[in-house]
């Protein structure tokens, strides 16, 4: 936050901003849409749609190898998008920004390439009990292949990491720590600064799954000192199909390539192939050019709106939602950590989340139900899933009131 930010400046004019999102004006079953499924994917503001349209109607062309005008325009816009993202997360170098398909793809890239080089028999990979499947399965695959072991930082009943257990698990055997910054199921914000500091004290690199952090809070990779950070464009107001892997230059340079193909090579002969420099070494094939450019537009939009203001506005909204939900009889929160962001998960009495979600949908309220791709976490809580309401700055208190009303009405049918 810069010194000039005052509280007044941190309060967003939500009604005005909502106009930037065409879908928020649509109706579902004849009623205004209440979209509380932002952790699954966010809606897109007009500048993002315009970036897509402009790209395809004015300068669509393949990048990097072209001499002609359109190709240069496309290349410049694509690389400008990379710069925007580097700026947004304060990366030391542009070439530390790799365009991927999304968080899942980013984590798989690291698990594969880092794992191939740095993980061996008897080694350990340390994740947490609240990870998304995307930050579990890639590590299972590489551990299985390499004869390494996956270790898990447990959580307490509030859904916060047991940091004393982390201390015990963090031994020299651990080759990488991969944890989520913010839990998509619980909303817990993890003490990643502490995790990184402790891991680095043992020279262990840390990957942060920032899929649920990047859209909610300022992120400075140099201050955080994270080694890898993964996030998805579609959860930060950008299009589907594009995501980011940030990696420290030293790691990315040390890692073997992941996929092979056009653009990621310097020189190909049938006998020997030499790989291109960063970031291209990890960007095989024609990239998602329009997706990258539109993600750049999404970052511009976030920057103009102000990430501090977004954070402030969302925190207020979540506090309000938390308070109103607390008053619903027999509602219990799943995940109740002190630091939270983005999402609130809950269950009402004995009502199955699927039943509640389906009825809420009929009141035109979109929430997500189920395990949220965190099955092991659901097993720890011994529940079939949760109802999750997840928020963006463009949601309103009036929408929260609709949610409360919807829950009450659904209860009458379901209890």
């Amino acid at each position: 936050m810069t010194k000039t930010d005052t509280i007044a400046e941190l309060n967003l004019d939500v009604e005005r901003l909502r106009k930037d999102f065409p879908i928020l004006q649509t109706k579902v079953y004849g009623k205004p849409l209440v979209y509380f499924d932002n952790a699954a994917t966010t809606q897109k503001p007009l500048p993002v749609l315009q970036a897509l349209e402009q790209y395809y109607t004015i300068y669509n062309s393949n990048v990097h190898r072209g001499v002609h005008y359109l190709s240069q325009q496309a290349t410049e816009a694509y690389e400008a998008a990379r710069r925007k993202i580097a700026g947004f997360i304060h990366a030391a170098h542009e070439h530390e920004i790799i365009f991927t398909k999304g968080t899942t793809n980013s984590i798989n890239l690291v698990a594969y390439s880092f794992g191939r080089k740095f993980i061996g028999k008897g080694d350990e990979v340390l994740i947490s009990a609240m990870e998304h499947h995307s930050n579990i399965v890639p590590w299972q695959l590489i551990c299985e292949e390499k004869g390494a072991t996956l270790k898990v930082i447990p959580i307490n009943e509030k859904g916060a990491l047991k940091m004393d257990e982390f201390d015990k698990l963090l031994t020299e055997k651990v080759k990488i720590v991969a944890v989520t910054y913010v839990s998509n199921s619980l909303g817990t914000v993890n003490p990643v600064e502490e995790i990184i500091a402790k891991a680095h004290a043992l020279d262990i690199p840390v990957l942060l799954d920032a899929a649920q952090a990047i859209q909610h809070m300022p992120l400075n990779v140099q201050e955080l000192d994270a080694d890898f950070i993964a996030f998805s464009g579609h959860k930060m107001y950008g299009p589907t199909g594009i995501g980011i892997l940030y990696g420290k230059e030293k790691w990315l340079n040390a890692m073997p390539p992941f996929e092979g193909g056009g653009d990621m090579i310097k020189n190909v002969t049938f006998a020997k192939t030499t790989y291109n420099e960063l970031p291209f070494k990890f960007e095989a094939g024609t990239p998602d050019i329009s997706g990258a450019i539109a993600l750049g537009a999404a970052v511009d939009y976030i920057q103009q709106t102000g990430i501090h203001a977004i954070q402030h506005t969302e925190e207020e909204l979540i506090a309000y939602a938390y308070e109103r939900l607390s008053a619903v009889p027999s509602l219990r929160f799943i995940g109740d950590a002190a630091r939270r962001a983005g999402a609130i998960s809950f269950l009402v009495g004995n009502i199955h989340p699927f039943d509640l979600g389906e009825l809420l949908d009929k009141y035109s309220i979109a929430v997500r139900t189920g395990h949220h791709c965190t099955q092991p976490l659901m097993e720890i809580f011994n529940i079939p899933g949760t109802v999750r309401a997840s928020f963006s700055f463009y949601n309103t208190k009036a929408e929260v009131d609709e949610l409360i009303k919807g829950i009450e009405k659904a209860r009458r049918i379901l209890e």
Partner: protein
Amino acid sequence: MTIKEQQDAIIEEFSFFTEWAEKYEYIIQLGKDLPLIDDIYKKDENLIKGCQSKVWLHADYKDGKIYFTADSDALITKGLVSMVVRVLSGQSPENIAGAEIYFIDAIGLKSHLSMTRSNGLLSMLKQMKMYGLAFQVKEK
């Protein structure tokens, strides 16, 4: 009642409701009539796992007829299951295997049901028809 008659009866019952909320309430109501699966059968082999809720289904074969018992952990699912069980339970393996199920569309549920649900319903129907086929083979 034949499979057709059972379906027509359900369609008739639902014709009284115009509001979707009433339909849901009635479905949940119907769930209470579901012949519950015996606890000893509530095991993994009998689990039809949908994306969101669980359904256990068991089939008994007696005097040339199949009798289904079932349960689910979600109320709406249970109601849906009970309707399908009502339509197919107590019928011959042949009739079950060859049954044409039209009541779901006819009561206008399809447009209400989430795809996750419809898929779940479909896999249950498939499973019941499989039982039909299996017992048909057994008979011979």
